[in-house]
C-alpha cells in the first residue's frame, strides 16, 4: 500500500500531553471533536493545516508519557495517515498499532523537512521524499504488530480469531 501526502514536522520528545491535552481528553469519547485540539499546545492552528492523508514526521521518543489511547486516536481522526519518527515510546507504539494507526520507524527521518511531499510504502518499508528526490529505509515492524495492523487493529484481531492468534 502506497500513501502520498505532505509533511508536518515536529521535533524530539513529543509527549501525549502535547498530542492531546489532559484538559480535553477526559471529557468526551468524541474523537472527531478531540481531534480539533491535536498538538494545540505546540501549534494552536495545527488541525486546520492538515489535509487528509498528510504525514507527521518527528524525532526521537514520539508519544512518551501517558497511556492515553486518545493520543493515536486523535491523530487518526485528524486524518493523518502515518506517523514517521526516529523512535517511538513503548505504550504509544502499542496503542497506535492496536487502534490501526500505522507507524514507521526511520532513523533518517531528520532528513525530511516540513512541507515535503512523500510517498510511503508501509509494507515494503520505503519512504520516498518526492520533493528532495531521495529514498529512505524504514525499520520493519515486529511480525506480531504487522499481524494486528493487517487485521485492522487489536479489537478486530480478537474478534476475528476469538482471542490472541499471534
Amino acid at each position, binding site marked *: 500500500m502506497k500513501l502520498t501526502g505532505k509533511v508536518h514536522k515536529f521535533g524530539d*520528545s513529543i*509527549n501525549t*500531553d*502535547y498530542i492531546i*491535552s*489532559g*484538559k480535553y*481528553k*477526559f*471529557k*468526551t*469519547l468524541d474523537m472527531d471533536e478531540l481531534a480539533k485540539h491535536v498538538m494545540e*499546545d505546540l501549534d494552536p492552528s495545527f488541525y486546520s493545516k492538515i489535509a487528509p492523508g498528510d504525514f507527521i514526521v518527528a524525532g*526521537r*521518543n514520539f508519544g*512518551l*508519557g*501517558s*497511556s*492515553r*489511547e*486518545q493520543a493515536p*486516536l486523535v491523530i487518526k481522526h485528524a486524518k493523518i495517515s502515518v506517523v514517521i519518527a526516529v*523512535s517511538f*515510546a*513503548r*505504550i504509544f507504539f*502499542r*496503542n497506535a498499532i*492496536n*487502534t490501526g494507526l500505522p507507524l514507521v520507524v526511520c532513523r533518517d527521518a531528520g532528513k525530511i523537512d516540513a512541507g515535503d511531499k512523500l510517498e510511503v510504502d508501509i509494507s515494503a518499508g520505503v519512504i520516498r521524499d518526492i520533493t528532495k528526490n531521495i529514498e529512505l529505509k524504514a525499520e520493519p515492524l*515486529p511480525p*506480531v504488530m504487522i499481524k494486528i495492523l493487517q487485521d485492522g*487493529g*487489536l*479489537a478486530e484481531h*480478537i*474478534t476475528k480469531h476469538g*482471542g*490472541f492468534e*499471534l
Partner: protein
Amino acid sequence: MVGDTLGRTISEKILGAHSGTDAKAGDIVVAEIDYAMGQDGTTPLSIKAFQKMKGERLKNPDRISLVIDHSAPSPNEGVSALHKMMREFSEKTGCNLYDIGEGVCHQLMPERGHVVPGDLVVGADSHTTTYGALNAFSTGIGSTDLAAVMLTGKLWFRVPHTTKIAYKGKMQKGVYSKDLMLHTIGLTTADGCTYDAMEFTGAAVRSMSIDARMTMANMAVEAGAKAGIFECDEKTLKYVAERSKRAPKPTSSDPDALFNKTIKIDSSKVPPMIAKPHSVDNVEPVDKLLDVNINQAFIGTCTNGRVEDLKIAARILKDKQVKKGVRLIVAPASKGIYLEAMRLGVLQTLVKAGAAVVTPGCGCCVGTHNGVPSDDENVISTANRNFKGRMGNSKAFIYLASPATVAASALKGKIADPREATQ
C-alpha cells in the same frame, strides 16, 4: 547454545511463569494476567473496545478494578457521563469499582492487596510500573489492550531486556528516594530505558521503606521503561501479608542473569534534585535553583502522596506558615492515607500551616481540576511529570521535587534546600 546456560532476570522469570515458556528477552509471549486496572481517563475507551470485540462477560471479574480518580469528583457533565458508564459496567460485569474519594489507582492496587510478589499486573495508565516496588512485573497499557485482558484474561508481551541500577551508600539527610530517581532519570534520559525493565538494587534501596520504593518504581516509565522492579525482602512480605490473602512468589534475578547494562550510583553523593520545565530528565541539584519564585506548591500524586511523604512535609511545616502569596495544595493518595494522616495529626499541621487539602485523586497533577495554575506561574510539585500543559495550562512552569523540597519551598516562596529547613 550459549543462551541456554545463562541465568534469567526477574522479568524473564515472571513472564515465563505466566506464559508457560522459558521466556528470554526479545521473545514474544502471550501471558496470563494476575490483575488488571483501568482509570476514568482510559476505561471508557476500554468499555467501547470491549463492546467492539463483542465482549459480554469478563474472563476474570475478580481480577479487575476500575478506579475513578483522574477527575474525581466530576468537574463537569461530560466527565459525569463517563463515570456513569464505568459504574454501570462494573455493576453489569461484576468487577470491582473504586469510586470518587477512594484514591489514586496506583496507591489502591498495592494498598488494597491486589498485588503480591511475582505477579504479572497491567493497568491502563502509564504509571502502573509502581507495583514493581512489590517485586511484581507491572506495566502500563492502553485501553484496547485492557479490553483484550477483560475478555481473554491474557495479553501479549515482548519480554524486555533489563537495565540494572545499583545504588550503593547511604543517602544524605534531607535526600529521599524521589531525589535518587530524578538523578537516575537525568543519567538515563527520558528514553534511555525504552523497552527495558529497570531493576533497582543495592544498599540504598534495601534500606528504603515500601512507600519510598513505590516513588522510584512509579517513575521508571519516565526513563521510557516498561517496568521498574525491586527485589523481595522482609519489608515486601510484611506489606503484602497485611493486605492480601494470596501467596507471594518472591522472584529474583539469577547471579549470572544477562543485563542490558548496569548503572552504578553512589547514593551518598546525590543532593536534593529538581526536574526543571518541561521534561523529567531536565534535572539539576536544588542549590542551583534557589532564586526561582514559586506561586503554587503541590504535595500528592501516585509518586509522593503517601503517609511517609505527608509526615516529611508536616515536620518541615509544623508551627510555621506558608509564604504569603503561595498556594499549598495537598492531596493524600488514598482514603486510607487520608485517615491515617488525620489520626497522626499530620493533616492538622498541614492545614494550620496554610495547606488546602483536596479529595484523594489525580486532578491537580493531570490538569483536570483542583489546582490549575495561571499563565507564567511557577509550580513546585511532588508529581512525576512536568510537561508543558500537564497541569492544565501550557503557559505555566512545573518543577518536580521531593515532598521535603516542596514543603521547604512553600515556606520560602522560592525553591529551597530541604537540608536547611530540617536543621
